[in-house]
């Protein structure tokens, strides 16, 4: 993000006067600035708490009406609620912004830092996130950035997928993303990293596989190195012993190099719910 010195709350407030009230900065820097703000609810009655993320133009693509409509259609408790997106000008620079519901809870990154996550919780996380990926795919959106930092564990214990910053409707991805890999190194599917064709939910399923391994082991399976995922993910049994065979098989399938062999979100949910019982 090309702002030096970093953006202040006041100058961001000026940009969004009349739309959002900026309350605090949550994360500055590399992947965009995130502010907690309050903004109008859909009904326009009481204000709601939102996470407002501001990117430079090269960090996020322009959203079409089609995409915004699809994001607004999303109704799933396992995925952050979309509020608004658009373009703005900050300190003379063209930027994009996205406002989503502010989700209270602990990020999965923080939880993993404390210790590896126990198997039953990992299974629960997998089901929650596969539910979120399925909901996104129902409106033909691929999240493209499924990773622990984008998962919030809410007080009820459920996981919520946040940050729709680079989520993309499939009708647009073929046109606009070829040649540039959007996503976080170490979590991208081989086809996402190659940036040769439009993606499907199976790409998010790959990222979910990496996330699950990281949750189980307590560290990233390739230390964040994307090139080690070129031919598919690391075999789960190499990372950890004594896992249920069904879970190993499912995660390995999610990490298949070829998208067609990866399970659909519905299949992940079905299989893991069986395991959870």
């Amino acid at each position, binding site marked *: 993000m090309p702002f030096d010195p970093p953006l202040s709350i006041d100058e961001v407030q000026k940009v969004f006067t009349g739309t959002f009230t900026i309350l605090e900065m949550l994360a500055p820097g590399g992947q965009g600035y995130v502010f907690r703000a309050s903004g109008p609810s859909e009904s326009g009655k009481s204000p709601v708490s939102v996470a407002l993320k501001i990117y430079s133009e090269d960090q996020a693509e322009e959203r079409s009406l089609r995409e915004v409509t699809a994001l607004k259609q999303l109704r799933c408790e396992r995925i952050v609620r979309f509020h608004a997106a658009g373009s703005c000008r900050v300190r003379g620079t063209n930027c994009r912004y996205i406002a989503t519901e502010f989700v209270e809870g602990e990020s999965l990154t923080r939880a993993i830092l404390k210790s590896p996550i126990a198997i039953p919780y990992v299974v629960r996380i997998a089901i929650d996130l596969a539910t979120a990926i399925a909901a996104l795919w129902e409106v033909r959106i691929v999240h493209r950035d499924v990773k622990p930092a984008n998962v919030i564990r809410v007080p009820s214990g459920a996981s919520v997928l946040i940050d729709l910053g680079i989520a993309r409707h499939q009708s647009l991805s073929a*046109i606009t993303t070829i040649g540039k890999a959007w996503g976080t190194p170490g979590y991208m599917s081989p086809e996402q990293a190659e940036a040769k064709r439009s993606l*499907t939910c199976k790409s998010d399923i790959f990222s979910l596989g990496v996330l699950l391994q990281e949750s189980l082991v307590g560290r990233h399976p390739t230390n964040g190195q994307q090139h080690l995922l070129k031919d598919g993910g690391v075999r789960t049994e190499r990372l950890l012993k004594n896992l249920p065979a069904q879970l190993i098989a499912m995660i390995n399938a999610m990490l298949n190099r070829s998208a*067609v062999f990866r399970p659909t979100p519905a299949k992940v949910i079905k299989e893991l719910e069986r395991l959870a019982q």
Partner: protein
Amino acid sequence: MIDYFACARFQMALPRGVAGDPDGGVIFAAGIPSHTLSRRKIDKTCPHLKRRLFDPQLYLAGLDASICPGACTNLISYRWFSGNGNNQYESKKHTQLEWKAAIRKRIVNLWPGAIPTEPGSVDAAISDAIALQNALECEAIILPAPLTTEPTQDYGESLEWIDRGLRIARDSAPGFDRLVTIALSDSCLRGSNPKANTMLDLVVDQITAREPEGAYVVVEQASEEGYYITHSNTVGALLQLVKGLRDGGIRRIHVSLAGTTGFLTLGAGATDWSAGWYRSTRRLRLVDFEEHEGRAVPTYYSHPLAGELHLERDLDAVVASGLFSEIEDRTPAAQGLLRAVAQGKPVAAVPNWQHRIGNVTAARAHFKSAMIRETHRVRDLPDSARATHMKSWLSNAVDLAARVREIGPLNARSANRHQPAWLKAFEEFLAAT
């Protein structure tokens, strides 16, 4: 399920003399007007169409009505081509013949020449196509999709139709298998090695991620004129596409209008296929819808050869070379011909096989009989043996075709040159999987 479906156009009945029963049939919109189709008592008159599919053929939307008036007249009787439903046949106003003559006269002005693009029109077109298939009591719903003709073309347009179709069919035809149309031109396939064809990956990824119950695959033969696909990349791509769909969990894969390459795809995971004897039901080639003078002449299909022989001189030449015993394909429809050959008589001595325009009933019955027999032979094999069966069939055919070529130049309609490309494609396919 490994099935062979016959192809039905205006003429739906099987030719006399077909041995065995096709497992079902596909009715093509371009071959019969909507009002004629809806008045047919299909179950009564065509028992082989008891299990039936109806192909809405949206992929023909780009036909030029000025040179294909007949096909366009038939197609415009379907609401997904006519849009507003104007110009539909009304029995109180005119006879079917009068309707046809009137529409044909104005078809250049009436024919849209493109698919609908407005969301509301797309939904209406899909709903109409589904409703008709429901009314026809088809065993599954073929969801219409446009033809993809360029490798660089955005497949998004097809996906838009497929997504809408899946949603509408889920609501309006619950319980029916939904077969999404994958209509690709060979110009998207022949230019690159199937393993490196990113379009194939795209199609397979996108379709399988949508989890339809089935796929209905057609390949437009834009780049070659014969009855047999001759480019190994096209054959390989079709095999790869079928395999990818199968690997991705698609339960039913029907390959249509790809000639006997459709049969070959049974070795890659296709569950059913369809192709007729006439070129309009054998292949999808847009120029076939143009109206030319001329009618069909008979040919003799040889499954061992994986091809066929023109009957004016070629079959007699093969007999004279001593090769016929290896090429012969025995079906009841060919009995008279085989008897004559055994007695040293020429083809011209067998009335229903003589090289004569329109004298095709025996050739058609023979072809269909062979396809039914061979499909059921594959059905009886365990899954694991099907690919080996196809490979050994093609290896033998390559050898036979080479020996046939040694006889000397044959008529262009004799198909004895594509076999090496098919074998190459199949071997490369097996090696890659």
